């Protein structure tokens, strides 16, 4: 297959770079994962990128973070990894749904490094006021999804638990589901 522009959430940067030898035709462009918190800005960035690059084929390595991704992925020449968000992409639908029902809040490696940005800057819980209560209303525990690409950041995970008040567990996901999801989406592009 000719080159495919892989518009990729920055949350998958390390993982995609690790998988890149398996997908030689992919040309990844990474967008800041914090755009998940601002879907309109994310849409604008995607539109700008496609306007500048005008690619023949596009693969979104993304969840359904903004309607534009979903709408574009339904058009010929576009495809998307299957999953409502990055956690479902890494876990698969069944496990994701089971764990969400069990009130789990997930951390992927990249957001773990930026957890203060997420909770303090993006959500506005500077100083932690109110965040523990808000989280405990809808979640019982944290789970770090260990993709195996970077060492498990034990110190940071302990810090998150200490400051946000929920217990943390680590689950090894590896890269197999992400890899399969990318392969399936590329197959869709070939057929489309």
């Amino acid at each position, binding site marked *: 297959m000719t080159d495919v522009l892989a518009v990729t959430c920055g949350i998958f940067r390390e993982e995609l770079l690790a998988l890149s030898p398996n997908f030689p035709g992919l040309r990844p462009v990474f967008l800041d994962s914090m755009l998940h918190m601002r*879907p309109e800005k994310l849409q604008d960035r995607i539109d700008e990128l496609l306007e500048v690059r005008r690619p023949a084929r596009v693969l979104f390595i993304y969840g*359904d973070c903004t*309607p534009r991704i979903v*709408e574009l992925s339904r058009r010929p020449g576009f495809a998307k990894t299957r999953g409502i968000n990055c956690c479902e992409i890494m876990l698969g639908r069944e496990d994701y749904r089971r764990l969400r*029902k069990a009130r789990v809040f997930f951390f992927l490696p990249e957001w773990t490094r930026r957890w203060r940005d997420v909770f303090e800057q993006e959500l*506005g*819980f500077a100083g932690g006021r*109110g965040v523990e*209560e808000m989280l405990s209303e*809808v979640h019982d525990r944290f789970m770090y999804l260990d993709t195996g690409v970077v060492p498990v950041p034990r110190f940071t995970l302990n810090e998150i638990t200490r400051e946000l008040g929920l217990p943390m567990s680590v689950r090894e996901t590896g890269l197999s589901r992400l890899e399969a999801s990318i392969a399936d989406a590329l197959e869709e592009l070939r057929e489309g």
Partner: protein
Amino acid sequence: MTVGNTTDIEKLKETLFSLMLDAEREGAVAMLLGFAHERGFQAAVNDLLEPVLQRVGEDWSRERISLAQGYVAGKIAEDVLLAAVSSHGDLRLDVKGPVVLGNVEDDYHSLGRKMVAVFLRAAGWKVVDLGNDVSPAAFVDAALEHGARVIGVSAMMLTTAENIRAVRAELDARGLSGRIRLAVGGAVFKLRPELVREVGGDGTAASAIQAPALFDRLWAGGPEGEGT
């Protein structure tokens, strides 16, 4: 606290708004309870809490305030409602409805729905909250069981919003469309207002604080909400 003229009320509103934005939950609740002690809970809600929440809601819609600030505002409202219930005060609770709320199948973003529930209760609605990931049949069964004429369905993303079609189909299949109205809401409807119609919604509101007005209209079978 002694509340006199309109100027005093305006000052109190300004103070309450600042307390909310500064996440000073205890101070805000104490202020509202002090007002309720003098004027009654109904006045505390109608004259002070609701107008300030309206302002918070407008700022929320314009992204001038954070999720944290919106959350704290909702918790303050919840605290005052709980105090009103436990004091058997004059606040008219559970005098409208009931209505059924829930997040659509596959959707787990519950904060918005919880805020809607708080503001509906503050406006006197009896709310049956079904939680997250609610199947179409469960929404309709609950509406029939409780005699609800409005179902409120929340969805965060396009793909989960599209699951609302199944709720509409369930209402149609049971011959209930028109008798039970469908309020829809969530972040995606701001980005795609046309979705309200596409998924079979009867109306939406721009923010949780505007939900009571939407539910009033839908319950009465009148014109639908914003974005329709």
